[in-house]
């Protein structure tokens, strides 16, 4: 009995798709477009996040030492900094090394440094922070700790830049959440309306099913199956388009903007999100059906 019913539901769903191929194609197209927009948004957010994360990781702190401190005092400061939990790598840059680096940077204008009586540059320690501490909050704590040490003249960590960068990231996250939420709502709205139209076009069929004694559940199941099929096909289609588009664009982006990207690889959707997008497609298909059928079942 159950098997006969199952067979009937599947057959009804297949027939429903076959008999209403055009309407289904429109619904699949709409869901595909909606998921595509959502997918593009997610890929953009994920990769922006990775790029910002990488920029953050490349932040370092320069601790300028008192030029008059002895070798022992310098070693003590260096060891104290190395002992802080945020510290990754500490590199000592002597006065001489600092001057030669400056000359290198000035290139053709390096001559202006020739008339100096003495080297005015202080020795410094360049501190690379551990990955997990390469963020504005950790850096502030770290700098506070460093400033407590003796024989230090100044600490430079791009304060202004860091503040702006941090504000920028917060803004991107806020705008991203807003845009993402809006997109999802718009997607649900479009899909539910499209499916409402597809079901409206089949209201006679639903009415007849009711008249001959079909239960609401047995009317809904074939529509569920159609909704699942719609959502599944649409998510596969959108992932396919997304992937091809991604591959075509990525080559150009990597070449043209490699300077800004640093060492970050632009990635496609991670596996988890890949599955989530398929599930979202299926869920949207079912959701659209359930919410659109209600009033047609009241015969």
């Amino acid at each position, binding site marked *: 009995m159950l098997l*006969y019913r199952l067979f*009937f539901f599947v057959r009804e769903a297949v027939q429903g798709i076959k008999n209403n191929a055009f309407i289904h194609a429109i619904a699949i197209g709409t869901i595909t477009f909606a998921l595509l927009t959502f997918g593009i948004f997610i890929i953009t957010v994920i990769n922006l996040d990775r790029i910002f994360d990488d920029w953050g990781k490349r932040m370092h702190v320069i601790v300028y030492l008192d030029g008059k401190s002895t070798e022992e005092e310098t070693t003590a400061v260096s060891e104290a900094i190395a002992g802080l939990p945020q510290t990754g790598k500490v590199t000592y840059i002597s006065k001489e090394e600092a001057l030669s680096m400056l000359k290198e940077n000035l290139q053709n204008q390096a001559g202006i440094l020739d008339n100096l009586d003495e080297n005015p540059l202080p020795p410094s320690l360049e501190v690379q922070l551990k990955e997990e501490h390469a963020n504005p909050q950790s850096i502030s704590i770290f700098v506070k700790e460093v400033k407590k040490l003796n024989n230090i003249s100044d600490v430079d960590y791009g304060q202004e830049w860091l503040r702006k960068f941090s504000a920028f990231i917060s803004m991107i996250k806020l705008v991203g959440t807003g845009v993402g939420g809006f997109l999802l709502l718009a997607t649900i709205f479009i899909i539910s309306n499209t499916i409402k139209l597809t079901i409206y076009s089949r209201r006679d069929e639903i009415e007849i099913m009711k008249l001959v*004694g079909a239960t609401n559940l047995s009317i809904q199941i074939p529509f569920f199956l159609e909704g699942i099929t719609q959502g599944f096909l649409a998510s596969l289609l959108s992932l396919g388009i997304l992937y091809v588009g991604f591959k075509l664009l990525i080559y150009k982006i990597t070449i043209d903007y490699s300077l800004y990207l640093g060492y970050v690889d632009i990635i496609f959707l991670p596996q988890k999100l890949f599955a989530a997008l398929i599930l979202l497609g299926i869920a949207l298909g079912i959701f659209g059906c359930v919410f659109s059928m209600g009033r047609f079942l009241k015969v």
Partner: protein
Amino acid sequence: MIQMFDVYKVYPNKHSALTAINLHINKGDFTFLTGQSGAGKTTMINLIFCAERATKGQIVVKGINLGKIKKSRIPYLRRDIGVVFQDFKLLNSRTVFENVVFALEVTGARRAEIKRKAWQVLKLVGLQNRLDATPLELSGGEQQRIAIARAIINDPTILLADEPTGNLDSEITRDIMELFKNINNRGTTVVIATHNNILAQQYATRHLTLERGRIINPEEQ
């Protein structure tokens, strides 16, 4: 089989479709409901198969009080009530066979049983040779025969028909009426709503006349 006790039906726009209806239709009756358009015939048919609910009064069908029936039980009641409409209500994308077996399939019947019963009812309505045609390839009379075959495939104890010959010419109307009579002779209680008084006088064993929502021949109630 069908009883109504002081039944009223008032629509939300305050239009009163039925007023103080009392009737008792026995098992095996061949009943006609006649009256002009808007007299309340369709409302009465709709009340019997729960497409609408009465505003006041009690309706009992096959011993079930429709005022108290749970929504989830309505489909099971409908499987025992066949309904035929003026506009046939067929699925034009499906074949004759598919339209007819549809009513059995939703009940989860076995394939062999579905085929056997489909053959029986299609033979009864004379369409056993048009199984693969779609409704739009058939005449109005043939389409109504499919609708009747679908209505009786579940062996219902009650068959309701709302203006079943409204769209058909007189010759086909006679054929369809003979078909209803034939079904009635097999023990099914038949209720036909029509504006055609002559038909009722020709075929009815009971004839109820409605006027502005009231039965005007109480001796038939």
